[in-house]
């Protein structure tokens, strides 16, 4: 199972095994990583699962789709080139070791 490391705004790191096909958001929320709110449950409808993807994984993760790109314009924390909505990143084996920083403000 590919691993994901989450860095919380307070600096805490949590590393989890992800089910292939689950999103970075789902893996965090189901296991109680705080800071990813994800109110809509992954429908790309709320922009409350904002993360910053570690530079080393930017290419592998790929770019946001059109809807996600629009939603990212409305995030509560500053949008940067590393910003993604974690509900839209599905885990794959080649993303093993993925590291994301959780945006400090989601709502």
């Amino acid at each position, binding site marked *: 199972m590919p691993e994901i490391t989450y860095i919380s705004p307070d600096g805490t790191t949590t590393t989890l095994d992800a089910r292939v096909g689950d999103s970075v958001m789902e893996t965090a*929320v*189901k296991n109680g990583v705080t800071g990813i709110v994800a109110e*809509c449950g992954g429908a790309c409808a*709320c922009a409350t699962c904002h993360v910053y993807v570690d530079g080393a994984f930017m290419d592998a993760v790929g770019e946001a789709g059109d*809807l996600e790109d629009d939603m990212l314009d409305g995030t509560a924390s500053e949008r940067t080139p590393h910003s993604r909505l974690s509900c839209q990143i599905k885990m794959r084996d080649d993303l093993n070791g993925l590291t994301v920083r959780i945006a400090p403000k989601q709502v």
Partner: protein
Amino acid sequence: MSHESILIVGAGQAGMQIAVTLREDGYEGELTIVGEEPHGPYQRPPLSKAYLAGDADVESLELRSPSFYVERGIVVITDEKVEEISFEGPSADDRGVAVTSTGRELHFTGLALAPGSTPRRLPLPGADFGGVLYLRDLADADELKSRWSTAQNVVVVGGGFIGLEVAAGARKAGKTVTVLEAADRLIARAVSTETSEFFRQAHERRGTSVRLAAQLSQFVGDGDQVTGVQLADGEVIPADIVLVGIGVIARGELAEKLGLEVINGAIVVDEFARTSDHRVVASGDAVLLPHPLGGGTQVRLESVQNAVDQSRIAAASLLGKSERYRAVPWFWSDQADLKLQIAGLSTGYDQTVVRGNPDDEKFSVLYFREGRLIAIDTVNDAPDYMAVRRALGDGQTIDPATAADTSVKLKSLVIDA
């Protein structure tokens, strides 16, 4: 108020969120969630969409993993209904007890009700035929799915969100779909005539037959299975499945047993999610609450957003904190490739402004009352939706005279009220 043992009745999104927030906020006492369904807390929105389409399995619907509850000392009791509940006396220190359908006694010092709602039934002749279905929980969804692959003719009774989502899924699966709506427009309770008319045309374009002002006389069947829906004029629309989505009834039964104020089944709460007995909090679909953006009206909000945000307030109140519920209501509905997003509550609007062209299937409807922005519906236009959600949260507005100008981003038109 300091609790040793908190009981949450209802294992849906709201009940789960109360438990999660209690632990996040440092509550260390006993914590039990009890729910009637055989499953732990799961997401309902995908039931009419991804789950029905086969794109999501039961595990993916879980709101938290089973180990999450164990690690946090949250006991989740499933498949048991709380049938009796009472406090031993009226004072703040009095304990209470709930008795479930298996006879189990659950003692508590603090109580949260998150009972949710139940689909409104359509009491027509033939209502007991197999294939006349409702959609609220996983069992409903599994029954619908079990009939899905062999059904060709799908009739949806009720042109609201659930009905239209199922209709969209059925059309995508190649079925013959008819939507029967009693009112003269779709989603009439939640959106303006402009949005209603857009959805009528959009569903028709995708091959669904939408019949407004439809009057039903009965379900017709063969043996014990439904075969059609008969209209008042005698016409029978063939149906292998009839999905009835005509709204829900709040489940205030337990609140009534506790002597709490209940209106039409809905549990009345204040802005702190406290019921008329301040020892008891309540949240979610079953609750009648003060409009979160002020104005003095009471509203019932059937949404994930409300289940989550109000439950956080309810948990805070249980721990003796006083946090007011001030969250901007928001909602979404995915129908085929159309993403409807709503921010704010349009109730009481006196003006609408359409931004963009509905024929492009990307537009917004902004709602105003006395010139002030109160809500927006957007179709495939997330930037407009986010702009208004933020504006309402910050107490800002948009001038209706400028709102239709699509040459500038809506975000740039937001002004202080």
